[in-house]
């Protein structure tokens, strides 16, 4: 029941998204714009500082992730479908998991575009340790999306939700973003700081466990009126 509900929610979001591609295209475009803005901010004499690529990557993920979260739930609010979802005789945490998986899939697509783009634009050796990079990306994205999905879902009902989402999301998820940035920077160091990257993956995993547990635990009472 649980897995099936989560899967159905994911499939529903996927079906809607495939028809319009609204969230995907806007998110990707915004992510690329972020990279360009930060490139202008950091590049001097045609060369970016060594660590800049790691920071730019995670800023682009965080900013475009916030945009995507807002858009996905705006769609639910507009169609008043979140209420219908909540009325369904299904376990509430399963709805959350379905939404979270959709968010993760979306950000995975964004990262699949961002990582090669940044590696290309900044001559960053991001692909020297693909497994560690995947671990850092997964750890950071899960933590960010876990909190983001919870708060975006709650904010559907709140006034001034566009402002409140980043206000709530950034302070809480900054530890995860720091972990992502420092872990990626460890991969970009020469020689590659593998121990550092593994330590940051551990910290990211710890945060993911805390954030996902808290979200699953609080989703039910939070979404009950």
């Amino acid at each position, binding site marked *: 029941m649980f897995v099936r509900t989560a899967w159905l929610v994911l499939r529903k979001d996927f079906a809607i998204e495939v028809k319009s591609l609204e969230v995907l295209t806007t998110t990707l475009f915004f992510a690329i714009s972020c990279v360009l803005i930060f490139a202008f901010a950091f590049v001097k004499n045609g060369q970016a500082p060594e660590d800049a690529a790691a920071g730019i990557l995670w800023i682009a993920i965080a900013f475009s992730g916030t945009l995507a979260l807002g858009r996905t739930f705006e769609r639910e609010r507009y169609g008043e479908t979140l209420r219908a979802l909540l009325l369904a005789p299904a376990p509430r945490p399963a709805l959350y998991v379905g939404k979270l998986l959709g968010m993760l899939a979306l950000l995975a697509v964004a990262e699949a575009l961002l990582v090669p783009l940044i590696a290309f634009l900044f001559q960053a050796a991001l692909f020297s340790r693909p497994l560690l990079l995947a671990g850092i990306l997964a750890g950071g994205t899960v933590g960010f999306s876990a*909190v983001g999905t*919870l*708060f975006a879902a*709650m*904010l559907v*009902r*709140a*006034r*001034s939700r566009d*402002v*409140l989402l980043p*206000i*709530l999301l950034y*302070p*809480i998820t*900054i*530890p995860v973003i*720091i972990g992502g940035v420092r872990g990626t920077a460890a991969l970009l160091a020469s020689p590659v700081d593998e121990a550092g990257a593994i330590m940051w993956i551990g910290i990211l995993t710890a945060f993911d466990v*805390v*954030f996902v547990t*808290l979200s699953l635990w*609080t989703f039910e*009472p*939070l979404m009950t*009126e």
Partner: protein
Amino acid sequence: MKKAFGPLLAVAGVMFVVAPFLIANAPYESTMGLIQKIFYYHVPSWFAMYLAIAVCGVASAIYLFKGTPVADAYATAGAEVAVLFGANGLVTGPLWGRVAWGVWWQWDVRLTTALLLELIFIAYLMVRRFGGPGAEKLAAATALFGTATAPFVYKSVDIWRTVHPNTNVIPTLRPSMGGPFAFSSLAFLLLSTLLLTARVHLAKRQMMVDQLYLAHEDQL
């Protein structure tokens, strides 16, 4: 608590008058000298903040799962007191850092995460203020995430090698310094408890007024 509030407030007042004398009489730390004495003020501020965060976190969890309005009053009070003492710690920290490190601010794990913690609870208050109806639950979730971050902030100095002194400093204090430190910590914890209860009392009164107002509306 209502009866004890006045006397306890007097006790806290006396403690805050006596504490400077105790601190002045405590020995100078050999390398830092006078500036080290800010420690008697800085660290207890953070203790008071952690206490307020704990109250806010527990009250938020109770409010979220049981829906008790009083728990919500405790959570608001906890968040406000946490922001107050956090601001205190964030002001006194750089004052010390300017002398000990030569700079006001270092992008060190402890400093950064402490600033984050302060931001989370400011966000909590902003959600309550601007979130409209139903914002209490949203705020409660924010508080839970903030409370989950707090132990990480506390332990961060032991996990990483940071420029901020680690948590071993306090248990290894000499008695001549530990005494005044314990005294000022107690004073801060007492003050924060009193502020908390006063704020909860105010929130309860507000709830009462709201209920009376609604009852009056119904009669009309």
